[in-house]
Structure formats: structure tokens, C-alpha cells
């Protein structure tokens, strides 16, 4: 497997695991942004942004039009 592909697979697996923020689970956290969004909510937004960056990277740098 190409090293870039391996890195993307590893990053995807890591994101799937990190998505489960067990350290905050079952806790009621007060809002920290706009009196509305709590830290776990912002963390989940961060996971999505990292995943988005990964997908964009894969499409831009791993894409080969031949297979």
C-alpha cells in the first residue's frame, strides 16, 4: 500500500476512535460558545472538520484517473 494511502487509512481509523469522547460522556457540560454550544458539541464539530480535511486531501492528492 502506498504510504500516503496508508496514512489516510490510519487517520480515518484514528478519527473514528477519537470521535467517541468517552471522557465527557454522560456529563452535562455548560455552553461555552454563544451561550449555546458546549465543549463536547464543539469537539464533535472539530472531528467533522478533520474528516472533511481528510476527504479533501484524498480527493486532491491520492486521486489517480487510471486504475
Amino acid at each position: 500500500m502506498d504510504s500516503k494511502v496508508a496514512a489516510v487509512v490510519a487517520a480515518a481509523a484514528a478519527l473514528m476512535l477519537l470521535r467517541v469522547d468517552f471522557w465527557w460522556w454522560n456529563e452535562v457540560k455548560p455552553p461555552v460558545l454563544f451561550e449555546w454550544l458546549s465543549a463536547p458539541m464543539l469537539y464533535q464539530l472539530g472531528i467533522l472538520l478533520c474528516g472533511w480535511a481528510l476527504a479533501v486531501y484524498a480527493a486532491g492528492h491520492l486521486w489517480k484517473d487510471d486504475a
Partner: protein
Amino acid sequence: MSLRVFTILAIVFGYLGLIVAIGWWSSRRTRATMEDYHMAGREFGSLVLFASVFGANISAVTFIGIPGMAYHRGWVAWPYFVTAWGWLTPLLFHVVGHRAWQLGRRLNYMTIGEIIGGRWGSPYLTMIISAIIITYTIPYLMTGLIGAGVTLEVVTDGFVPSWVGALIVALVVVIYLTKGGMRASAWVNTFQTLVFLAGAVLMFVAVAMALGGPASATRRVMELHPELMSRGGMSMKQFFSYGLIVGLAVPLFPQVFTRLLTGKDPASLRKIITLYPPAALAVFFMMAYLGMWGRVAIPGLEGAQSDEILPRLLTAYTPFWMMGILAASVFAAMMSTLDAQLLAMSTILTREFLPRLPFIPNSERVQVRVSRGLVVVLTAVAYAFTLINPPGIISIVEFAFAGFAALMPAVLGTLYWRRCTKQAVAASAVLPQLVLVGLTFGWIDRSWTFGFLPGFIAIGVAVAVILIVTWMTPETENTDGYFLSPARAGGSEAPVHA
């Protein structure tokens, strides 16, 4: 009939009329060939491709199921789906969709079954895969009709019963789909995607403002239902496993997969990968908060009753003219999936099953006519099932999603693993489905899930089976042109035999 109900119905019927008109207009160029009816000549640019794929993906689950789930479980409803599916699915559009697009162009494939069975020239493998896909698409198909019926019943205060609402939507979809096939469906979906994206924003803003703003609404939830803020109603194992299931399942939905093959070039596909995550987040985020705020605004909904929370919020907090527009945008999300599912199932049946019947003539014109007839029959079957009054929408699709996700190892093995054998792919497609059904219905002891969702175990079984059976079975020859040699990069198209 009150003026309020009359206005809402006038807006909704005006919208449905517009949809039929767009479908009719876009179908002028549709020719009576299988390639044109089912794939629209594979000519779509990035905007239509994105709207068509996203519209096929966003369904009643989003506009009815997510608010319903957030009503009972809180904000976790959006990361439950989006923080895995929102990026993993676009990543798989690259991994699976791009390769499938190339094969579709080169070898004229239109379905997942053809791409898998086609590697070994095995029509039986194609039919096995397609039978599994059809089995899981039917319950998912029902959700669109159920959601449409519920929405119209609630926003008209029961004036239009849900069975009538579902019937109206079914008829509208049948009209433009039989006329224009994929081209009509894709252009209608482009319009519908714009409508439901704008409608979601409008609904969110209107309801949030009526509740005193997001901060005030969230504060009330923290005071009255703090459990909705803690995610305590869901186990971490469920959260983890469902993320994987939904992320792997969506690229294999037939309505999504077939559309990935209709792009005119790889650049179109690449652009939708970039657009998908923010669009997915926007819709799910807003729907989940509306559902959670709905718990304090309209308390007391039990079980699957919470599927009505969005239309109830619209009824309670928006002026009735706006409610008509918003109800139309909910319809847009449902119809864009419904038509894509119907067309995809018609494609599968016409391409893979009907040619084996001796009384079907081998003529493209007849096959297109049969495809149109199948759209009508499939709609009638799905409608009949919706009248049975099944449980909550999320429960229905959770099962279907797991079935699709368990097919992913077979798909990846077929597309990328040259040593992989057709026996391994067949076993990896079928055995996990038996495990999934066994665990879901309790025929296999639930303790074997170890706290994860049954679909997660089924995916694990699929991976193990494809590895073991490939190791146990001899290599077999691939179809010419399925794999291209590295020399292709230099301009030569030398096929490789495994």
C-alpha cells in the same frame, strides 16, 4: 376546510405541480434507451451530480427521524450520524465511487451487482448482491412515504390523513419518473436539494426565534431535561458502531451508488467530495437542535410519536403561509430519495433479473417500457407496506443501513484485491446478512454483540469471511479490462488478468 388549511394545501400542491413540470421539462431529451433512461447518458456536471447524490441521500430520516430521535435523546442525534458519515462517506466516494465510475464507463456497468459479478463474469453473484440490496432498499423506501403522510396530516390538522398524503407523493414521483427516468429525477432533485437546504435554514431560524433564540431554548432544555445534553441515553459502543455503519452504508445505497456513475468526468466526482461534509453538517445539526428544543416546547410525545415533532413545531411556531413552504421543503427531501430509490431498483431488476425471463424480448425499447412499468409496481408495493403502520422511522432504517454496510468488504475486495475470489465475495455478502438478521431478531444470543450494534458485528464477520475464504479458494480469471495495467498511465490500456 379552514383558510389556514386551504392555504397550506394550495402551497403544497403548487409545489408538487412545479416538481411535475420540472420533471416533464427535463425529460424532453430522454431517449428510449437503457443508457439514457437509467443513466442520462452519464453527462452530469458537478452541481447536478452533487445535488442529485445529496438529494438521494437526504431523506425522511433527516427531516422526520433526526428531530424525532433528538426529542428523546438530545443533541447526540447529529454527531451520531454526521461526525462519521459526513466525512467517511465522501472519502468512500473517492475509494469506491471513483473506481466504480471508471468501470462503469469502460464496461457499461450501472449497478453494484454488475460491478461485483462483472469482475468474474458471474450473473449469479450479481443477482445475489442485487437481491440483498433490494431487500434492504424496500424498508428504506417506505420511510419517504411514511414521512410524507405524517407531515401532511400534521400540518393540515388531520384534514389530509397520512395514507392520502403518502398516496399523493407516490403519484407525483411516478409521473415524472416514468416520463423522464434518471434525467428527470436528477434535475428534479437538483431543485429539491436547493429547496430543502433553504427550507432547513428557514425552519431553524423561524423556530429558534420563536423560542427566544438558540441560547434561551438550550437553557430551557438544560433546566428541564438535562439528560438530553449529556448523551446518557446512548451507549458509547452504540455511538461508535453506528458511525461506522452509516458511513459504510451510504455509498452502497443503490440510489446513491448509481448516481455516482452518472458524472461526466472524474472532476465532477471530486467536487462533490468537497461539498458533501458542510452540507451534511448543516442539515443534521439544525434538525437535531429543532428536535431537542421541541422536547420543552411541545412536551409529552411518546415513542414514535416524536417523529411528528418537526411538523408540530412548524404548526405551533410559524405563520401558516410559511408552514406551507416549509412542508414543501420537507416533501422535497423525501421525494428526492424516493424517486432515486425507485429508479435504482428498476435499474437493478431490468438489467439483472428480467433478461432471464424468456417472455421479455431482447429490445431496448421494450426494456425501457418494462423499467417504467416497474417504477409503478415498486411504488405500489412500497405504498402497500406503509399502510401496515410500522414502528419509528429510525428503527426501520437502522436495520437496513447495517445490511448495506456489511456489503462494503465484498465491494472493496472486488474493486481492489486482485487475489480475491468470487466464492469469498459471495460468502462475505451472504453470511454477515444471516448474522445480522439472527442478532437483530434474537435468533442468535444478543450477548454476542458485546454491546455493539448487530451491524458492527456483521461488518466484522464480512471482513473475516472474505479473508478466510479467499485464502481457502483458488484464484480465478477476471473479466478482460476489469483491471488495467500500470502502463495505462502512459496511455496504453492493457488489461491485466489476475
